[in-house]
């Protein structure tokens, strides 16, 4: 294992960076999309709530692998744009993350006590103002720790991008395997790399959770 790291260490670390980057993109875009869906889930209009529920249920019942294949082979046919493995993988990760983030956003908004909404409305504030000044900031604080969990989940799912040919950490390991002919060492090495990265991030998430611990009324 040490020999793999000695020879290919720099390559693997760079590939790990690519993995972190594409997962971050997926989380960011998925977060925006998920926020919209999450807001729709708590909306006043029943139609929006139902549509949002269908959206989250749909994307939590489809394997990410299938999503990746669809984004790479099927989406180009629908939108008339050729998608590179990078774009397709990011799109798939975005959709997957959005359904998780929708739930995080919904839970975050719901965590703010109803009484605060009522008090704000009674004071004459409009929905937009309440969100921006009262509920939003509190909700965001609640959303941060679970978002870290979504990031870790996305990092794991990014390994599937290797199957549609995107060169991230897993694909790099497979390419190294082609040259060395030995699977065990390189696969064990990236397993360790993934573990170190994800566990580290989860520790950060734990710290965030403690820092933002708020009393609930």
């Amino acid at each position, binding site marked *: 294992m040490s020999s793999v790291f000695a020879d290919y260490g720099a390559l693997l670390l760079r590939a790990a960076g690519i993995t972190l980057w594409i997962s971050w993109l997926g989380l960011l875009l998925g977060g925006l*999309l998920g*926020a*919209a869906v999450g*807001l*729709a889930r*708590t*909306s*006043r*209009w029943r139609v*929006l709530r139902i549509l949002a529920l269908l959206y989250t249920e749909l994307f939590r019942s489809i394997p990410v692998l299938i999503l990746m294949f669809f984004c*790479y*082979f099927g989406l*180009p*046919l629908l*939108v*008339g*744009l*050729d998608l590179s493995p990078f774009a397709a993988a990011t799109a798939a990760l975005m959709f997957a993350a959005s359904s998780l983030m929708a739930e995080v956003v919904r839970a975050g908004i719901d965590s703010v006590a109803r009484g605060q909404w009522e008090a704000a409305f009674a004071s004459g504030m409009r*929905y*937009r103002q309440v*969100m*921006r000044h009262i509920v*939003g900031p509190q909700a965001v604080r609640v959303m941060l720790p679970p978002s870290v969990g979504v990031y870790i989940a996305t990092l794991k799912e990014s390994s599937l991008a290797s*199957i549609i*040919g995107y060169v991230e950490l897993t694909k790099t390991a*497979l390419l190294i*395997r*082609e040259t060395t*002919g030995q*699977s065990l060492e390189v696969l064990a090495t990236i397993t360790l790399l993934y573990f170190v990265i994800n566990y580290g991030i989860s520790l950060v998430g734990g710290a965030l959770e403690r820092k933002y611990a708020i009393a609930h009324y």
Partner: protein
Amino acid sequence: MKRFSAGRLSSVFLCAFAALMVLAAPAHSQSTLGQVMSSGKLRVAIIGGNPPYSSLTPSGEPEGYDIEIAKRIAAALNVEPEFITVDIPARVTVLQTGKADITVANFTKTVQRSTSIAFTDPYVVVSLQFLVRADQNDLQTIEDINDRDVVVGITRGGTAEQNVPLAAPDASIARFNNETDILAALDTGQVHVMSQDNLYNAELMKNRSGQYKVLPGLYSYEEIAIGLPAGDFDWWRVLNTWVGQFNASGDNARLFKEWFGYDLPPIQAQY
């Protein structure tokens, strides 16, 4: 000023999506031939990393047998070739979306594929062969493979799906996404036989001589042809004329020998 209203955000997303749909609709008003002649460019989709059909030099320039064919076509039409690197599935979609004018990429002409895109006449014919590890002495002929306990590795959705069961109906089939996975499984013995076309096998034997051996017999007839968008008769007429003369004049045989190192297999099937 951030607007968090659910209604607003959702309608913004809907509008953006609708706009994307409208803008992305390709305009198919001109025939491909007209487009190529007026723009002076021939957009060719190729597969990198598949020597000697096509590969990329370290500086990123494409080179190979398929590349030379595309360059000759462009020269015949008096236009400049522009190469787009794609991979296996995108060979088709890049024609369907109008992003390329032709695809020259080790492309087998099948009836199935012809429902989505068009093909010229073939310029190479390949056949399916079976490959085993050199140390496997119990698998020497097709009869040895035709056994339920023998696992044959193939790449998904290719012509092997039909041809392997035809050649060895009792063998078990394992589907993988690419050749390197099959090779890895063959090396470890999880797959006993690999099935690929004879040109791929020849390359493999050249690069990894002594590790594998090819079993005798050719088990399919597959025509490699140039792909082009469907429904464009003028474009097909021009390309097909070129292919016919390319074959008949001996230019193809010369080019093939130059890139592959051995003689071009016969293109016309013996009826």
